[in-house]
């Protein structure tokens, strides 16, 4: 499975995760990631034929809540933590091109 570990493309993964990395940081991370990915490749040896994946530690289903509205929080609680705002009403961010959901 060495082809998998060598396919760890640090730049594209870091970009996907929105992490800017310094050049020296990249060098050490590249070595670490190679090692760690090589280690987790031990999973390829595991026979999982017919095994269901386990996504949760508790086997609960259908946990939902009734549709009732409660009071929201005061805007100030969030505005006070915001790095930048517009008129203390909107959270300000560098211009976004709106592409919707």
């Amino acid at each position, binding site marked *: 499975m060495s082809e998998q570990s060598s396919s760890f493309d640090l730049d594209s993964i870091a970009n996907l995760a929105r992490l800017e990395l310094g050049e020296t940081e990249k060098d050490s991370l590249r070595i670490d990631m190679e090692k760690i990915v090589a280690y987790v490749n031990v999973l390829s040896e595991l026979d999982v034929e017919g095994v269901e994946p386990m996504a949760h530690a508790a086997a609960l289903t259908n946990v939902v809540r009734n549709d009732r509205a409660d009071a929201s929080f005061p805007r100030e609680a969030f505005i006070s933590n915001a790095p930048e705002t517009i008129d203390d009403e909107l959270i300000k961010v560098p211009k976004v091109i*709106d592409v919707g959901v």
Partner: protein
Amino acid sequence: MEKYDVVIGLEVHVKVRTESKMFCSCANLYGAEPNTLVCPVCMGYPGVLPVPNKEAIRKTVLAGLMTSCDISKFSKFDRKSYFSPDMPKNYQISQYDLPFCLAGNILISGKRFSDREPLPEKSIGITRIHLEEDVAKSTHFPKSSGIDFNRAGGPLMEIVSEPDMTSADEAYAYLTVLKRIMRYADISNCDMEKGELRCDVNISLKPAGRKEFGTKIELKNLNSFRSIHRAIDHEIARQAAELDAGAPLSQETRGWNDDKGSTYLMRVKETESDYRYFPEPDLTPITFSDEEIDAIRAEMPETPDAKKQRFIENFGLTPYDSEVLTNEKAVADYFEKAATKSSNPKQIANWIISELLRELANSANEISECPVPPANLAELAELINKGTISGKIAKQVFTEMFQNGGSPAAIIEAKGLLQVSDSSAIESLVDQAITENQAQVEQYRTGNQKVLQYFVGQVMKLSKGKANPQMVVAMLKEKL
């Protein structure tokens, strides 16, 4: 034969009408002051957890049943990761491989939007309906954007169609039918101005008859059904021209500029987005038994299509009238209430279509606010049928009812509008008309039958519209 086959699929996001948001208990409301309907959960604060809204799930399943989908016995929520300032957690809780509803379809029919010619009935496949959370609303300024999170975390259905449509008219009809269904079942108001319905169009052209799809182009920022229709027509022409010129199309997202009437490039998709879906560990799976699905089915309102067919069969309406009346459930309900009290349902249909809907449109009222109850409209129609008033007087009475309320009988009484069927009274009016219009009498007697209509008008005028028109005609024929 056309040179290219057009392939259109729609992704429609519909805001589910609920009291509270999808995963927190903030109110799911439009129009509040910015960032006042927010809490740590819908602001994506550290440490918060989502708890799903039961009613939003029920309405999604209902939407699936209304569109003949299969309801999944086992569904789950997944995380869809991408960074966007309008998405508080930078992942959207959505559904990936196990959505609530799969493999449905809806029937489109009616008239083409472009030329009002009949649109052949056609079934459009629904690939899936899944439930997810809405994102925040961004307002754009020259150098920055401002984010209001009131909308963030609202329950949002994504309804994905099969690429079954081939024209702007079909897409328009599909949206019309879909919206009608959502409103019928009270799943959503689908008001585009409030962002309750948003539509992305996937469109591609391929040489006629070829199997493989052409390059898919996505259209966004479409603000009304009309602009969707225009954008599709424009895009078909644009792509056809490019293909004619031998230019290869690239996979891209294009926006619609309504003022210019053209689409513009937003971004080229170099690589497929890597959303890194995985099962949402903060939420449990959702299961449905047959009994639970049946219980939701039992609450399902009659679909617009079924109602349309029933009105045609039970009330003898034309398909067109039935379509108009079943467009809005409230109108259909109004019609049905009035029609069941009437001896002539077709007459009721005409009154609603030509008078009531016009008055409502003029007064910008919803039918739910209509000052004329269905029983009063039925009563008015019966008064015409019994000859108590003429159709013309009835319109006058109707206007009065619409403006100031009151029953038709009371208005006729108060305003002295009873039809005159007394033959001696009518006779004296007929005599007066003949005396005063000798020239026309001459014309009639020399063979111009059309002048009769002129005399009817004169008599009706003299009677202030109250004379029984049939009696007037009979007596004029006799005397002339």
